[in-house]
């Protein structure tokens, strides 16, 4: 049998029909095991996971806060540790920064990686996500704006004017050129911070702050107080210090949260893994085994094999693994606080024992007298897990009530209410001496330790020293010595009174030399960043070989 024409036509028609019927939508595939860009931001629970994502990313850069906020403050030992390890970040610790030795690179070791998802979140939630209820949307945006203000404020305090990026432009870009953004002025940068705080406040409205490990309205108020306190006192680039008008704004912000928190009786328990979400904590990053631990804290303690049996207590008792470092990793001493900081603390101050483990070594071969060897840190060492390993799972506290009190002290001092300032200092100090909330008990037991108000500069120094004892490894010291004023009205970092002695160094020196290092209140940006973006210029005051090249 052969084919007739009819059949041929039938077959050919079917063939051609097949071509046209096949839908090109067959080629639209989406990932099956995760979200691609096409199937996210589609419902409320996804937005909820995005908010978790913002905190995951922010938590990942906890160490940047330490690098930017504490390392340069003059409280770190220089040289080698007592177990012979070379110490890290010496260029930062000694403030020997330059274009080629920027200390930290890539804008605070990657702060823009935290800002990008915030920009994306704000853009998506403000312009889309219509499935969210009004209250959901407002609360989310309050959080996101607050967090963005927090990170731009970190950048502002570190670099002054920075590239201001508020949209997730990289998603739609196809070339590097499209992403070149020049540095804004300091004032413009600070304005963005303040605008974001206003946006955050407006979106939050009257919402309550029920959680501690997520950004809350109260976190925004703490940030607002920090920002205006800074803005009031620190001139940067084209920004002139705002003075008392801004201090009042800061004061109002703090008054919004006064009374909602309280100091814990036991200073050490604030950081106890088993005492998370405590009444003193206002905002913290949550660390948990299996999620994230603060591995870098291990750089403040010594591995047992280099430590056990080699060092002594002040009384000459040989120490073993006193801190129960066990086999945590990494745990080779890379950061050591200056002995002078430890010495500045009164022996009855409970913060000593909660913060440091002082180690001694024999002064001579008789093993009868002992001399200081070095400090180990112990405040946020976390806990020991089921497998008997040390894990650094303490929460990373960003804001706590003691900070609110000491900021209040500083504001009152700036508003010339010196007695009020002293009162706030004493509230914090009373707790440290075991008299939480009992000022009269404190003054009876330790009359010499009660702070009596002095003049403005005296109070500033007292506030600095109180903060130094209270906020070890809480990313405060460098910002404090820039913000607080010395007797000459300049940042106190230029005053010798802000310096600490050390084991092998008995002189108090200023953190920075005003004559030669006044530009160093800000950090230089690294060459790699300059190379990536021809529009960038070096931070004013730093000699540059690179940023001119692009002109």
């Amino acid at each position, binding site marked *: 049998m052969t084919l007739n024409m009819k059949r041929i036509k039938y077959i050919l028609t079917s063939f051609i029909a097949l071509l046209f019927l096949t839908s090109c939508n067959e*080629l639209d595939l989406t990932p099956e095991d995760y979200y691609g860009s096409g199937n996210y931001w589609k419902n409320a629970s*996804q937005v909820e996971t995005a908010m978790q*994502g913002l905190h*995951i990313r922010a938590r990942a850069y906890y160490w940047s806060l330490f690098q930017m906020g504490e390392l340069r403050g003059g409280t770190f030992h220089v040289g080698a540790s007592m177990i012979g390890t070379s110490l890290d970040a010496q260029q930062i610790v000694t403030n020997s920064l330059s274009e080629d030795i920027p200390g930290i690179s890539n*804008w605070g070791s990657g702060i*823009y990686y935290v800002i990008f998802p915030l*920009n994306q979140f704000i853009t998506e939630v403000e312009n889309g996500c219509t499935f969210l209820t009004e209250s959901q949307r407002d609360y989310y945006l309050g959080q996101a704006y607050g967090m963005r203000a927090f990170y731009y404020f970190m950048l502002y305090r570190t670099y002054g004017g920075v590239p201001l990026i508020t949209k997730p432009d990289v998603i739609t870009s196809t070339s590097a050129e499209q*992403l070149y953004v020049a540095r804004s002025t300091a004032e413009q940068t600070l304005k963005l911070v303040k605008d974001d705080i206003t946006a955050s406040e407006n979106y939050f409205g009257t919402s309550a702050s029920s959680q501690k490990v997520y950004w809350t309205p109260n976190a925004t108020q703490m940030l607002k107080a920090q920002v205006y306190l800074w803005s009031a006192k620190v001139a940067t680039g084209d920004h002139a210090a705002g003075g008392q008008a801004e201090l009042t704004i800061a004061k109002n912000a703090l008054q919004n949260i006064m009374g909602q928190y309280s100091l814990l009786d036991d200073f050490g328990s604030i950081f106890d893994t088993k005492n998370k979400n405590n009444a003193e904590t206002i905002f913290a990053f949550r660390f948990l085994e299996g*999620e994230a631990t603060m591995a870098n804290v291990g750089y403040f303690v010594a591995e047992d094999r280099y430590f056990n049996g080699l060092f002594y207590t002040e009384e000459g008792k040989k120490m073993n693994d006193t801190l129960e470092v066990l086999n945590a990793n990494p745990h080779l001493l890379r950061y050591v606080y200056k002995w002078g900081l430890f010495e500045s603390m009164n022996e009855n101050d409970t913060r000593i024992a909660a913060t440091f483990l002082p180690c001694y070594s024999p002064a001579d071969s008789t093993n009868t007298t002992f001399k200081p060897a070095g400090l180990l840190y112990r405040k946020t060492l976390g806990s020991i897990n089921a497998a008997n390993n040390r894990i650094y799972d303490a929460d990373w506290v960003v804001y706590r009530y003691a900070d609110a009190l000491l900021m209040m002290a500083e504001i009152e001092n700036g508003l010339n209410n010196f007695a009020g300032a002293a009162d706030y200092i004493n509230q914090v100090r009373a707790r440290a001496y075991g008299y939480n909330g009992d000022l009269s008990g404190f003054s009876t037991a330790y009359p010499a330790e009660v702070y009596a108000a002095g003049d403005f500069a005296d109070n500033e120094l007292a506030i600095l020293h109180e903060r130094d004892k209270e906020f070890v490894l809480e990313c405060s010291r460098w910002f404090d010595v820039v913000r607080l004023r010395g007797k000459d009205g300049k940042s106190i970092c230029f005053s010798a009174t802000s310096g600490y002695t050390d084991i092998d160094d008995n002189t108090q020196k200023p953190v920075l030399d005003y004559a030669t290092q006044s530009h160093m209140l800000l950090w230089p940006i690294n060459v790699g960043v300059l*190379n990536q973006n021809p529009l960038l210029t070096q931070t004013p005051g730093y000699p540059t070989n690179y940023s001119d090249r692009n002109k």
Partner: protein
Amino acid sequence: MFMALFLILPGLLWAQGITVKGTVSDHSGALPGVSILEKGTTNGVATNIDGQYELTVSNGNATLIFSFMGYVTQEIPLNGRKQLDVVLKENTEMLEEVVVLAYGGTQKRSKVTNSIAKVQEDVFKGGILSNPAQALSGAVAGLKVTQSSGNPGETPTITLRGGTNFDGSGSPLVIIDGQVRESMSDINPDDIESMEVMKDAGATAIYGARANNGVILITTKRGKAGRTSINFKAKVGWRYINVPYKFLNARDYIYWMRTAYNNATNLTDADGNTYTGWGNLNSLGQNTPHGTGNRYFDADGVTPLDGNKSNLAIYSTMNYTPDLAFLLNQGWETMTDPVYGGEIIFKSFDISKVNLNTPSFSQDYNLSMSGGNEKGSYYASIGYNDTDGNVLGNWYRRVTFTLNADYKIKEWLTSNSSFQFADAKWNGLPSTQASEANYFCRVMSLPPTMRGTNADGEYILGPNSGDGNQKINLDKLIRDNNTDKFTISQALTANLYKGLSLKVSGLWFFDEEKQEAFNKDFQTGPNSYNRTRSSSAYFNRKMNQTYNAVLNYDNEFLPEHNLNAMFGFEFYDKYEKGFSASGQGAAVDDFMDLNLTNPELTRSIDSWHSRERIMSFFGRLNYDYKTKYLISFVARRDGYSKLAKDNRWGFFPGVSAGWVFGKEDFMQGLNNVISFAKLRLSYGLNGNVNQNFVGNYTVQGAYGSGKYNNNTGYLLSTLPAPNLKWEKSNTFEVGLDLSFIENKINANFTYYNRLTSDKYANITIPTTSGFSSLLSNNGKIRNQGFETELAFKAINKGDWKWDINVNAAYNINRVVKLPDNGILRNAQNYSQAYNPKTGKLEIVGGYQEGREPGAVYGPKALGLYRSWEEVPENLLDKTSGNNGSRGNWLYGKTSWRDANANGTLRSGGLAIAPGDVRWLDVNNDGVIDDYDVVKLGRTTPRWTGGITTNLSWKGIALNVRMDYALGHTVVDYGSQWVMACAQGTYNTLTKTNNSFSATNPKGKWPTYMWADQFGKRNYCRDNNSMFVYKGDYLAFREVTLSYSLPKYLLDKLHMQGLDLSVTGQNLGYLTKAKDAYSPEVASATSGYPLPKILVLGLNLTF
């Protein structure tokens, strides 16, 4: 040479029914089986074994048609003759070869306008192959095949014309019976009917988006009408290890290692002052491989220590004491300590004897059946390959089954059904081994003083499970690897109208992999065990579906106008899914069941899913006029799910043209010399979605997940890239096909130029954007080259036949454009070196615009300083070295004196001494630093090719296949590491016997010193010219001697054929890089050398 001539003998004229007789022969004698047909009738007959025939024809004026496969058909009018002897002329084989085209088309070689090379089936005949790629070395001009490992399951790396990636990689698309494969692994070479390599884009454009690295088209065997046969092939082979490294025996080892410690400890400067180097002699008295602190007896003095229990009894080296004298009867030996002069007793143990399996045995069997008639035909085969590697416990086994069946259901409708199955199981290296290099370099350099056995004669492990005797834990570390591949296809071909047909087909290809691993408790050292009991399982399935419909039209529509047109549609879907799980800590170590693992300890589970789809329209138009003017168009339009909607569809055209100018009038005068001549031109465009950059969903971006406060959170982790396009390759080529002297010499020459643009690149962006790089289309690379294939029929006389085939390809790659990065020539991964002329630093190596990638730069050794006089006065060596070098400064004589005198000597500084290398100071500044390097070569060869010859006499044939590569360098990190004593206690090569010393001042190699990297870095420098060899090689890939039983014997045995063969496979290389494990690999730490294989073969056909 052989004229078409026939003899006309006088005969009588008959009116009707006359009988014609005669003999049919060719130039070498009688031809049996030639069919003779009376024209216009069905009346015919075939010649007998002596070439004779007898046929009764209708009348004396009839015309007879003589036809025979491979010969030119002749029509001869009888003109009344009764006797007609005919000499048939062989067909001009090469030109009439039929080439398989995409989507089932075929084309005569003489009409092909593209570079399509047919792999000669000979290549699969002699050797034992676990996959067909192993036979392709040198088989096709421009196809570079790198066989980098002797692991039997290994599939060689194949690149065509230099590859389209900057690093010279990029493998051709492999298509088997219409199914795209990821590689040629697990394919039975015996099932292959033909293999075509499509090189130019004028041809490969029809495969559009995936074909810019060329296409290898494989067609499996199918049954043919009229021929029925059962074929059985058996091959057995012995694989002999072929390691270049010759390690020292224990006596030499002890001598050299103890000397090395001394050499690295007690040093002298030019003024005769001694100083301490980077070593110390403590270990010479300890329980080290070379130290005398080992013990034979326990503390009680009578109980022998067991090396599996005690650290003191792993190595044999000890001070000789009379109570050990009995050991001398057990093969132990004594020698004099070269350092302290005492007597040392030791035992020699060769780890390679225990951990290398040579010769290992391999076997390969194939049974196939085929047959058919005018209605239907089939081919079925079962194949089995079982190959043991030279490494302990390394093997590969493959079982394949193929059934290809065709049936003519109706006069106009044919069905083609196929079922193919391949099951492969294998075991790689022992799981303690991180790499093949580790096995052949580190394990084999285990100190030969390792006792090997304890006093009871049981093997001992040695220092640890990674470096020690692998036999100990072999059955404790269970690995079960298995792939299964199924192909099921069904096609229907409808012959619709004269020359018009439609073929519709569907094809499913399952590609599954299963892996399980389980560690029983295993020994990790003396008295130390790993009891983790780790268990894991993995399963992955890739389900490929291909559906297509192809309309084909083939017609001579006007006299001498030939037209073939094809148009088709295809839909491809690949879905991958799988899962894996692991756990540890089961209560017993007898079972791998994951359920038995301890839930308290880390367990992991995962599953995954991923799909890609391609929709395509394609067509081809081949047209020729008088088979003289040829033109061909191909085109494909592909839509690929991997790319975003707006960039998903691409159009890939190809055009090629040929002019058989040999047929033009002006060439007629040259006919006797040039028998065929064709000029070819081709141009085409291909695409590529490079899977190294773009996965199934890459362009959609990805949100990565994490946990915060026990809640899941998502963050954009991969940027979407909706603008990403195809990488595009434009290929132009021009070629000339020539045949000389009656086609006794066939030659072709091709020049090509391929520019691949829109290369994928991760370009650096300001991190203020939130990301550090952006995937984009940016960058261009050009491959340019020349290919030639020459085939000579050197002898074709009587029983003698000798063919020689040579092919050669020259290729050079150049980077044309790279993403802007502000660096000169937008260089990437570059280094710096002094220009010898200007003394200035220059950017060298890596990728640079306008430059060829793969330059090898290294320090040049100008021999050794042989006396203090030769050591320069003022020189500082500040190089950084490799293998964890300490970068000690090395000082010339005066530099050393001055540095010592004024206290500026750097900690660890050393005096350059006789026996150290004289390095080239490129910029002549008296300082040797990391920039004093020169160009030593390049990583890729410029020339590649193959040479085959086939000489036969009657049934005996000798077939030799060779291949070569020229113009690359080989960096031998293996020898460097071993001879540097970089491990510190492990064995060195016998070459160390010829190292410089006071007693061997003419030694070739620098002084042998402990841990060269901690000292003078005579060995430990990257690309040290002493270990950079010219890689040019000629590989003796295969030599086969075969014998075919003559026909008269076969007839007695009732067989169609019986061949016996003996083959030598991978017989070795002619190369200067013979000290490296393979001259085919430009840069490798070391590796698994290809074994020399002796194969015996039997091929039976009934």
